[in-house]
């Protein structure tokens, strides 16, 4: 063994290298306050390891980025843990940077001759923040997409070159494949290389000047090994333990590990867009300035300049005090701005709703990606775009909720802007909905025809005058008619009921004539076409045809109230299908 080490040492100078790195003088002995630099080096190493492995499974393009991250997170062995560690270690680094900075400033370790230590440290801090910013976009999820758009749009405020700078970084006029390939090259290539270069420089300068001991020293001098190494190791392990605890315990939308919101969709604005928490103070700062140039460039620039000048200011008698004051003021300012940003969001019910909607989309995207049909070649964004459960409420809110309610709201859960002027459609054509419809006490309320032209029409008249006076036998017939009519819709939620009640249904079909339905309605080649046809009433095709043109002779004809023919230019076929499927409760649900 010794021979081998001698042989190696002869050729490489290994002993001297190990000795030089371990037997560094520490005046006054090891201290816990010196651990921050080591924890930063350690966390950077963690990011290199986890980052390279993530790289091996990541595919940067607009059709594969979210998909490959989804695959890492939900399918690959240990992928959630790997990605979680990378995600939370990135955040830990920001905290550690702040602690390292404060220790350096408070202990006066930035002063001559260590100016270059300090400046290389500042460059490293900027590079780490740039890594966070570029990494945020890579999953190509709604959160990263919209938050990063803000950041790259701010670039246009840089004087003279802003526009060109933005185009170069984004890889074109708009976000796309090249935005990802560029961000990935910056995130995984350019920035880590620069960080390594500056860490080497930073460490070289650190070793050149030695550690700046906190004065006064109270204990005898020690070497770096083993006392300080032990303290550093404990600190690193503690950081890792905190990171892993966060990965496992900090659930976002109930999901373990790093969050992944829905696939980026330029056509679907993301109201919950916020930068990572450590950039929230900048986000909040922007709100106070009319000019983004001042808020995003001038003020942070001036603050950075003041920090960079600390070693020079520190030469004066009161300089150190000033620098410590600036540091404390900045820390307090950042804390206050962050707290205010959080408070404003917490007090804003719109933001809560946006967060809830985002969580729902995120969850749904994963459910659909795991469905047997899988993710199509055009990417996971198509899953949500073609999903009735996701699009139905939005389309309903945008196109139907001006007149119709959905269980009292607009489909998405928002209260209606105005009182409904047409029937509430939640549960349309279900047994329950029809039972309420035929209730003399409910038919003329705003829930049904109360605010429509049919308020004084024949149907309301029949229900109020005749149905109200039904005897027990007739009520029994009506119940059968309701069941039979509801069966026409073939609602997925009533499939079992309809199968069970086959006899009652055929009974109800015959009872339609008895109760006079066919005097006005057509039902399977019988009856008169004076009111909407009841054949296939509430079925998928019936609803599509109705929404496309309610004034068609099959439906209200000339008696149509105010409902537009949506199929004639207002909505495309696909949108109408999505609304109908959502109304009928027809969407993919995973088997339990």
């Amino acid at each position, binding site marked *: 063994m010794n021979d081998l080490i001698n042989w190696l040492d002869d050729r490489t100078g290994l002993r001297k290298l190990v000795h030089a790195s371990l037997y560094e003088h520490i005046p006054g002995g090891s201290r816990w306050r010196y651990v921050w630099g080591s924890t930063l080096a350690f966390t950077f190493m963690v990011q290199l390891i986890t980052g390279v492995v993530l790289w091996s499974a990541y595919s940067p393009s607009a059709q594969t980025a979210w998909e490959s991250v989804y695959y890492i997170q939900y399918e690959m062995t240990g992928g959630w843990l790997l990605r979680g560690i990378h995600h939370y270690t990135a955040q830990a680094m920001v905290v550690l940077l702040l602690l390292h900075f404060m220790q350096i400033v408070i202990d006066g370790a930035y002063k001559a*001759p260590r100016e270059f230590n300090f400046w290389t440290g500042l460059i490293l801090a900027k590079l780490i923040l740039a890594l966070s910013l570029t990494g945020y976009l890579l999953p190509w999820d709604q959160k990263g997409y919209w938050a990063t758009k803000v950041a790259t749009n701010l670039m246009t405020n840089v004087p003279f070159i802003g526009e060109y700078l933005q185009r170069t970084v984004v890889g074109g006029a708009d976000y796309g494949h090249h935005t990802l390939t560029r961000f990935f090259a910056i995130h995984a290539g350019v920035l880590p290389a620069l960080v390594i270069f500056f860490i080497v420089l930073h460490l070289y300068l650190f070793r050149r000047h030695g550690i700046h001991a906190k004065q006064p020293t109270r204990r005898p001098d020690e070497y770096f090994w083993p*006392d300080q190494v032990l303290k550093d190791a404990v600190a690193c*392990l503690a950081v890792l333990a905190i990171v892993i605890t966060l990965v496992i315990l900090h659930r976002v939308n109930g999901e373990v590990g790093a969050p992944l919101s829905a696939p980026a969709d330029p056509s679907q604005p993301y109201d919950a867009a916020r930068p990572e928490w450590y950039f929230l103070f900048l986000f909040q700062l922007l709100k106070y300035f009319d000019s983004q140039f001042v808020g995003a460039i001038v003020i942070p620039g001036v603050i950075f300049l003041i920090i960079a000048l600390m070693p020079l200011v520190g030469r004066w008698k009161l300089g150190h005090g000033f620098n410590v004051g600036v540091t404390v003021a900045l820390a307090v300012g950042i804390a206050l701005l962050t707290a205010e940003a959080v408070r404003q969001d917490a007090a804003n019910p719109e933001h809560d709703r946006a967060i809830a909607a985002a969580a729902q989309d995120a969850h749904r995207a994963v459910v659909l990606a795991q469905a047997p049909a899988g993710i199509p070649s055009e990417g996971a964004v198509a899953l949500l775009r073609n999903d009735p459960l996701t699009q139905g409420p939005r389309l309903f809110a945008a196109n139907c909720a001006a007149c119709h309610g959905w269980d009292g709201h607009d489909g998405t859960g928002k209260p209606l802007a105005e009182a409904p002027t047409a029937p509430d459609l939640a549960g349309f054509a279900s047994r329950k909905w029809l039972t309420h419809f035929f209730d003399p006490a409910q038919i003329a309320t705003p829930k049904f025809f109360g605010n429509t032209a049919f308020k004084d029409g024949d149907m309301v008249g029949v229900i109020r005058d005749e149905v109200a006076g039904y005897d027990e036998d007739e009520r029994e017939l009506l119940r059968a008619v309701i069941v039979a009519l509801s069966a026409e819709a073939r609602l997925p939620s009533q499939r079992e009921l309809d199968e069970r009640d086959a006899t009652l249904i055929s009974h109800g079909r015959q009872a339609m004539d008895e109760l006079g339905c066919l005097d006005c309605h057509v039902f399977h080649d019988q009856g008169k076409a004076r009111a909407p046809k009841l054949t296939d009433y509430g079925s998928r095709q019936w609803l599509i045809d109705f929404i496309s043109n309610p004034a068609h002779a099959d439906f209200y004809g000339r008696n149509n109230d105010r409902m537009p023919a949506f199929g004639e230019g207002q909505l495309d076929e696909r949108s109408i299908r999505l609304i109908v499927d959502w109304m009928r409760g027809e969407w993919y649900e995973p088997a339990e």
Partner: protein
Amino acid sequence: MREQVAAPPSEPQVRRSFMKRFLALVIGGLAVLAPLVPGGAVLLDPILRRRQAKGATGGADLEGFIAVASLSALPADGMPRRFPVLADRVDAWSTQPNVPIGAVYLRRTGEAEVSAINVVCPHLGCAVRTEADGHFVCPCHDSEFDPTGKIIAVTRHGKKTVAQRDLDTLEVRIVGDSILVRFQNFRAAIREKIPV
């Protein structure tokens, strides 16, 4: 006051504390090795994960048979003809319905009898082509096989065929007019025919 660049500190006390050295190594080692665990798991995912249930056989029937061609389209001249095999392909995260997952040579051996051969050479995985006489020749290492897929020991160029086994035949089933093939790939470079 300016600090000195190389202020010589007092010679440190070298305390030979075994416990401290041991703990420093163990704790430091733990911290450094920890991220390698999930990293290794993800890198070894292809070995660790349970096999993809669907793989490349989606679109096939329960026993894995896929319709490849119609019987009437295959001439009865005993010459092999190449057909693509279409099935749903699950490639990591993406699912592509009905795309080529491989190709086979079909050869009519009777009224309603067909033999199928995977186009992949069992030597090192190149795709073989057919010559005018119906022989298969591998373009990579010149292995030669007769129209039934049997190895020809000495090739037309006078060299020894390097492939270690015959071309891989596949199970065929005729249903009505359609030819169904149980499509499989087999491990290359070995003498035995073992499905991948």
